[in-house]
């Protein structure tokens, strides 16, 4: 019999799939063993997809010569220089932009953009690079093998590789040789309910208040209101990664 249509019969597939799912549910149900919840406090329910954490950074407010956010990030996470600027870990850095035609100079701070569709997660061979339910893109160092594919995949050059044996790491950020790392959006603070990143705190202390952290999913959050009323941009918006970090006046 000749096959008149080269497309598979989707109804047939659906039926078979449904049958497999139904038998699967029956056989699994009696033997299901659930892990007892090992959390002590009730409020520590973990990351939720109800939120999507993000940032908006106003380049006009970012002051020339200031490095408060970079310094704060380094002390918060115990990032120490090993005297080799090329390989020293930098989770946030300042970038100078110059329009060659007009010679207008602009400044921005660049870190992991916490994309909705992160290329680093796509390429990771060990699922070490992952996106949490609340949109924060992290490296699970328990799984990272240090292949650095993610560093090559990241269009923002946001990730660092640890080349040195470390000791006395910060309790906020356990990190070690042979792993890739990047901005965690101060995940240790968020999980404790502190809704302010170290860089934002430092920027506010300096009186610039260029960085604002908040929940992009909450229409009433300050960050959502600003993004709704202002002309913000994503860096490399053409890649359609839907970044969690947005810029004003860039």
């Amino acid at each position, binding site marked *: 019999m000749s096959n008149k249509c080269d497309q598979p019969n989707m109804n047939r597939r659906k039926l078979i799939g449904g049958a497999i799912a139904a038998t699967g549910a029956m056989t699994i149900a009696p033997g299901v063993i659930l892990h007892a919840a*090992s959390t002590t406090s009730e409020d520590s329910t973990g990351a939720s997809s109800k939120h999507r954490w993000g940032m908006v950074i106003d380049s006009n407010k970012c002051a020339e010569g200031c490095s408060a956010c970079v310094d704060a990030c380094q002390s918060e996470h115990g990032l120490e220089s090993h005297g080799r600027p090329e390989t020293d870990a930098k989770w946030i850095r300042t970038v100078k932009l110059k329009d060659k035609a007009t010679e207008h100079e602009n400044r921005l701070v660049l870190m992991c953009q916490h994309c909705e569709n992160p290329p680093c997660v796509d390429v990771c061979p060990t699922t070490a690079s992952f996106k949490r339910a609340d949109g924060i893109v992290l490296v699970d160092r328990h799984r990272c093998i240090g292949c650095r594919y993610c560093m090559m995949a990241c269009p923002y050059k946001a990730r660092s590789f640890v080349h040195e044996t470390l000791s006395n790491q910060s309790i906020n950020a*356990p990190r070690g040789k042979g792993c890739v790392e990047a901005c965690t959006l101060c995940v240790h603070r968020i999980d404790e309910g502190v809704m302010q990143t170290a860089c934002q705190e430092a920027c506010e202390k300096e009186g610039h208040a260029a960085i604002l952290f908040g929940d992009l999913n909450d229409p009433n959050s300050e960050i959502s209101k600003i993004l709704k009323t202002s002309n913000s941009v994503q860096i490399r918006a053409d890649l359609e990664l839907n970044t969690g970090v947005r810029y004003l006046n860039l």
Partner: protein
Amino acid sequence: MRSSLISNRSLIILLAALLAPAMQAFGESAYITETSKAAEAKKCVDETDKVRRNHMDLLKHGRDETVREGKRGITYSLSECIECHASRNAQGEAVPVNDEGEFCQTCHGYVAVTPPCFQCHRTTPEEGSKGNQIGYHPSEFESDNNRFHHQPVGIQRD
């Protein structure tokens, strides 16, 4: 057939007799270092034997919950182990838990395992950190000084 059975049985008895002193030393040794916070606590975060036997699995389960799901304040937290079990030297400074004769190293050295935990995790409590606010607090358990009526013999190694 019969003779081989007897020889098997006697072999087992011989092995047991040979291993007994070593097992006894291992079983009786107190792992808790005297100058650590754990010395003050009555019990560990769970039944001590359970934690002693299964801590590697408990920690492995907990690390995924924390890193990937963002659950903090888990019961079996490595930073809490360190917080509680790091001993203090004469100057009151914390001694790394993986130093010779310290809590983690003593057993791991004995059973010849090298856990990779401390490639990334710090080995002393962070002074003035928020870490001791998270999760388990030994002060919740009443102090029991009788626990140390026998001094930690440690594990003898040559």
